[in-house]
C-alpha cells in the first residue's frame, strides 16, 4: 500500500477543506516571515545606527571619564596607541570633547564640542555621510562646524549662520571664537541632536588649548565577523588597568538587551499566531477523521496496522503543510524583500523615534535573513505536527468492529 498516494487522494477528496486549511497555514506563515524580517531589520538597523554612526565597535577612555567628562582626563600618547591599533586589525580614530555655551543671533544653548580626526573618523564611522543639509567638515575650512538637528532649531540657525562659542581653555582663560555652520546632521543620538557641534580636532585643540592627548579612542574591527567580547578582553589585557576598554554592547546595554530580546519577541508572536493556525488544522483533520471512521475500521479489519494509519494522517497533514510553506515562502519573501528595499514609512506616527538615547529612522526597513525565513516555516511544521496528534491517536485506537458499525 502506498501511503503517499493514498494520502494524496484523501487530501484531494475534500478539496475545499484542504484548500482552506492550506491557505490558513500559508497566510499565518507569510505573516510570520514578514514580521520576523521586520524585527531582524530593526535589530540590524539599530546596530548599524549605534555602531557605525557613532559608537564604533570599541571605545577607550580614562577610567571615570564617561561619568565625569573632565577636559583634563586625557589619554596619553593617544596618537601612538591609535597607530598601533591601525597596524593591528582595527580602524581607529581620536576624539576630543569640550563643553560650553554656543550663541547665535537669537539665543544661546549649552553645547558639547566634538573634535574629530578628519582623516580617520570616516574610516571608523559613517557620520560624515549622515548630513541632512550642507556638507561635512573639510580640512581647509577652519571656521566650519557641523551641528545636530535639534540644536539648529534651538539656536534658530541654518546653513551659513554664525555661532559664537564661550567656554574655558585648559589654562584657565576664556575660550571664545566664532564659527560658521557648514552642515546639519540627521538624527544620531539624543546628545548629538541636542547639543552636538562637530569640528576638526585641530580646531578644538586650538580653541581650548589642548595640544596633545585625546578623550576617546574609537575602534572598528576590520573583520566584523569575529567575536567582539573576545577581542575586547584581549585589548583590555594588553592595555592594562590605566585605560578603560568597552565594546558597544557594554556601552549601550539597553539597546543590546533590546536586540537580544527581538528574537524572543518574534518567537512569542509566532506562538500566538500558530496556536490559532493549529486549531484550524486540528479542526479540519478531526472532521476528516470522524467522517472516515467506517473506512478506517475496514482498513484495520483487512490488516492495516495502527502505525500505518497514523503515518497516513501525518502524510495528509504534511502534504498540506508543504503546499502552505511553498506559498508562504514565495509570498513572504516577496513582501519582505519589498519592505527591505522600501521600508515601512512610520513617519506619520513620529517624525523621529528616539529610544534609549538612539535615534531611529522613521522608515522601518525589513531584512530578509535566513532566520526570518527558516524560523516560521520550520515552526509551522512543528505546530501542525502537534495539532494532528489527537486525530492521529483517535485513528490509531479504533476498534475495527465498532468502527464498521459506526455511522
Amino acid at each position: 500500500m502506498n501511503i503517499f498516494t493514498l494520502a494524496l487522494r484523501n487530501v484531494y477528496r475534500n478539496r475545499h477543506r484542504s484548500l482552506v486549511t492550506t491557505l490558513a497555514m500559508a497566510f499565518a506563515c507569510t505573516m510570520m516571515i514578514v514580521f520576523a524580517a521586520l524585527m531582524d531589520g530593526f535589530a540590524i538597523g539599530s546596530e548599524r545606527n549605534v555602531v557605525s554612526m557613532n559608537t564604533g565597535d570599541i571605545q577607550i577612555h580614562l577610567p571615570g571619564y564617561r561619568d565625569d567628562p573632565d577636559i583634563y582626563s586625557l589619554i596619553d600618547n593617544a596618537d601612538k596607541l591609535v597607530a598601533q591599533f591601525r597596524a593591528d586589525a582595527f580602524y581607529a580614530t581620536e576624539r576630543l570633547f569640550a563643553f560650553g555655551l554656543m550663541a547665535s543671533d537669537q539665543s544661546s544653548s549649552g553645547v558639547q564640542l566634538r573634535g574629530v580626526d578628519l582623516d580617520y573618523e570616516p574610516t571608523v564611522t559613517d557620520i560624515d555621510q549622515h548630513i541632512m543639509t550642507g556638507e561635512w567638515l573639510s580640512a581647509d575650512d577652519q571656521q566650519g562646524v557641523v551641528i545636530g538637528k535639534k540644536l539648529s532649531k534651538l539656536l534658530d540657525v541654518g546653513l551659513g549662520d554664525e555661532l559664537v562659542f564661550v567656554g574655558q581653555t585648559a589654562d584657565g582663560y576664556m575660550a571664545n571664537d566664532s564659527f560658521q555652520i557648514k552642515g546639519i546632521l540627521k538624527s544620531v543620538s539624543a546628545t548629538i541632536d541636542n547639543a552636538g557641534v562637530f569640528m576638526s580636532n585641530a580646531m578644538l585643540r586650538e580653541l581650548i588649548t589642548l595640544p596633545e592627548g585625546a578623550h576617546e579612542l574609537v575602534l572598528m574591527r576590520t573583520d566584523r565577523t569575529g567575536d567582539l567580547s573576545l577581542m575586547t578582553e584581549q585589548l583590555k589585557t594588553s592595555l592594562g588597568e590605566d585605560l578603560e576598554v568597552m565594546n558597544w554592547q557594554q556601552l549601550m546595554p539597553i539597546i543590546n538587551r533590546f536586540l537580544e530580546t527581538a528574537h524572543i519577541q518574534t518567537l512569542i508572536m509566532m506562538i500566538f499566531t500558530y496556536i490559532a493556525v493549529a486549531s484550524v488544522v486540528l479542526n479540519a483533520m478531526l472532521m476528516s477523521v470522524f467522517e472516515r471512521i467506517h473506512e478506517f475500521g475496514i482498513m484495520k479489519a483487512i490488516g492495516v496496522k495502527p502505525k500505518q494509519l497514523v503515518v497516513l494522517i501525518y502524510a495528509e497533514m504534511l502534504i498540506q503543510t508543504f503546499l502552505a510553506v511553498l506559498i508562504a515562502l514565495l509570498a513572504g519573501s516577496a513582501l519582505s524583500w519589498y519592505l527591505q528595499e522600501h521600508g515601512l514609512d512610520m513617519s506619520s506616527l513620529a517624525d523621529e523615534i528616539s529610544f534609549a538615547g538612539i535615534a531611529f529612522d522613521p522608515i522601518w526597513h525589513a531584512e530578509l535573513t535566513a532566520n526570518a525565513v527558516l524560523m516560521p516555516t520550520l515552526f509551522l511544521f512543528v505546530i501542525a505536527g502537534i495539532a494532528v496528534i489527537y486525530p492521529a491517536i483517535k485513528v490509531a485506537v479504533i476498534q475495527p468492529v465498532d468502527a464498521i458499525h459506526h455511522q
Partner: protein
Amino acid sequence: MFKLLPYYFSLFFLLPGLFPVHAETAQGADRVKALLNEVDDLWRGQSSYAVTTMHVKTDHYERTMKMEGWSKGKEKTLFRIMQPLREKGTSTLKSDNHIYTYLPKTDRTIKLTSGMMMGSWMGSHLTNDDLVKEARLEEDYTAEISFEGVRDGQKIIEFTLIPKLDAAVVWGKLALTILADSHIPVVEYYYDEDMVLARTIRFSDIQLLGGRERPAVLTVVPADKPEEYTRFVYETLSLNVELKDSLFSLSSLKKR
C-alpha cells in the same frame, strides 16, 4: 538696601546674614538685628567704583586678572577686565537679574542662560549664580547668634543663618563670624543642602578703603579642593560716585 560693587561678593555672602531675624528673646533678636544692620552699614552706599585684582589658583592653572567695576543700587553692576591683554575689554553686565557678557575677540554680547548659572565666572571659584543672587538673599535667611566670645585670640560673634523654607537658595546653612569690636567680617562658611561644608570665604587685610575700615582681601576656598582658591584684592574703592544709568546698558558694554 544699597550695596557696593566690590563688596558685591561679600555682600551677597553676608547679606543673608545681615538681616534681622528672631533669636530666643526679644532683646536677643533686637541685638542680632542691630549687629547685622551695623555690618550691613559697612557696605552701604548708593553707588561705587572699585578696582580689584582676582587671583585664581586651581589644580591645572594659575592666573591673575585685574578689573574695574561699577555698581548702582542693587540691581546694576558692571565689571570690565583691564588685564591680561588677552582678555582686556571683556565685560559682564548684571541688570535686573539678567547677566550679559561682552567678548571683544568676537565682538559679541551673550546673554547667559539659566543653564549656565552654575558655571564658574571667569574661571574662578564663584559662579554666575553668585553674581545674580545677591539681591535676594537678604530676605531669604533666618539668623541667630551661635557663639560669642574668644576664638583664635580674637573676640568674635558668630551667626548661623538658615534659609527660609520658600527661599530659592542653593545653600543649606551659612555661618558668619564677625569681630566683636569693629563688626568687620572675618570668615564665612557655606554649607550645602546636606549640611556638608561646600566653601569658605575669609576676609583679611583690614584697611582704610573708601573712607572706612574694611577687609581688602576676600579668599574663596572650595571645600573639596582646599589647595585651590580665588582671591580678590581691592585696590581702590570709591563710594557714592556719580554714575549714569546709561553706563549699565548693553551698548556701553562694548567700550574698551
